[in-house]
């Protein structure tokens, strides 16, 4: 199936920033959702998306079109979100729970739904798997390509992610298989 971004992509690779802007517009919602739901912060997600677009723009000449453009973008976004997360300054225990920057407090409030609170309790690999599969509707193959694991592992991570999510949402404990 032809990549729907192919024509814009070719123009963008020739340095057409407007074409790249259109590509960014097409994918911004999914990129931002991916970053925000995995990072749990709109502000950090904006940083991650900005970094994603910058890296993609700079790396466009090297994009070989052996994967879909969206898959390539997701991979960059996942890496950018990881970098944002690792650059977080650890909060000392004695600091008040309210963030120093009022924007962070409001940003957290925007994402402080029951679901987001539950997502925060998930292991990062499981969180990414359920966000990509259930929130973004990505197929197993695309998640496998983005995360660099086999499809069977992707399914296992989605299963575990949903199981932990159900637990965090306060439903019954999911049976744990001993051989897993």
């Amino acid at each position, binding site marked *: 199936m032809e990549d729907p971004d192919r024509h814009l992509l070719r123009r963008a690779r020739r340095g057409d920033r407007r074409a790249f802007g259109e590509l960014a517009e097409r994918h911004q*919602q999914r990129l931002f959702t991916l970053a925000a739901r995995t990072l749990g912060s709109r502000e950090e997600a904006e940083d991650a998306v900005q970094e994603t677009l910058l*890296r993609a723009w700079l790396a466009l000449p090297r994009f070989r079109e052996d994967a879909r453009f969206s898959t390539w973008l997701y991979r960059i976004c996942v890496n950018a979100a990881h970098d944002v997360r690792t650059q977080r300054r650890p909060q000392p225990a004695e600091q008040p729970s309210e963030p120093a*920057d009022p924007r962070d407090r409001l940003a957290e409030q925007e994402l402080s739904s029951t679901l987001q609170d539950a997502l925060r309790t998930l292991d990062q690999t499981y969180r990414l798997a359920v966000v990509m599969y259930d929130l973004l509707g990505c197929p197993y193959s695309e998640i496998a390509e983005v995360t660099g694991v086999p499809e069977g592992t992707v*399914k296992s991570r989605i*299963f575990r992610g949903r199981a932990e999510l159900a637990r965090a*949402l306060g439903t019954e404990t*999911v049976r744990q298989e001993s051989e897993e």
Partner: protein
Amino acid sequence: MTDRGHPSNLELFEHVEGDLRTSAVAEHVERCERCAGVVRQLELAREALRSAPLLELPPKRLQQMVGELAHRDPRAPCLSVRRLIVVLTPVAAVLLAVAVLTDGTSRPGREERSAPPAQTSLAASDSAETLRAAAPVVATVVGPAQEVAALLRERGLDARVVDGSVEVTGADAEEVKRALGQRPAGDVPVTLR
């Protein structure tokens, strides 16, 4: 199926997703309360996730991000705007302080005045304050400042609270006034950056 006669987690997952070609797992789930419970949890979690909306960037934010690409040389190292601001702001403050100090001592005919060391940092912070105070004030509205900033962000503007005032980036005065709407006058300045 596992040795205990129950489907594996993977099989239960594939059953929920409709990926299985045989009916063995479905038949087992119908008669096994334990596995039926697992299936319910998977379905509940899936429903909770799939009911969540996709999130949107503020409209102008994406324009800003793409606009900034024009200044990027593919051979330059990758730096986010935020990191650049963190690095350059103290440098700019120091340069401004130096400029203010040298301006006070360079004019011919004036008495020499040398500021004691303690005043240098004050001068730097005063200069930062001067910079901030010089930013054009679009309006002064009723607070609190965090609420004003949140209102502006809801309406698509890049707004943040800085020292009790609200600073808007990447917008003109008209856009800010429209976004503020009929908010009453107060003591929270809204400035443009």
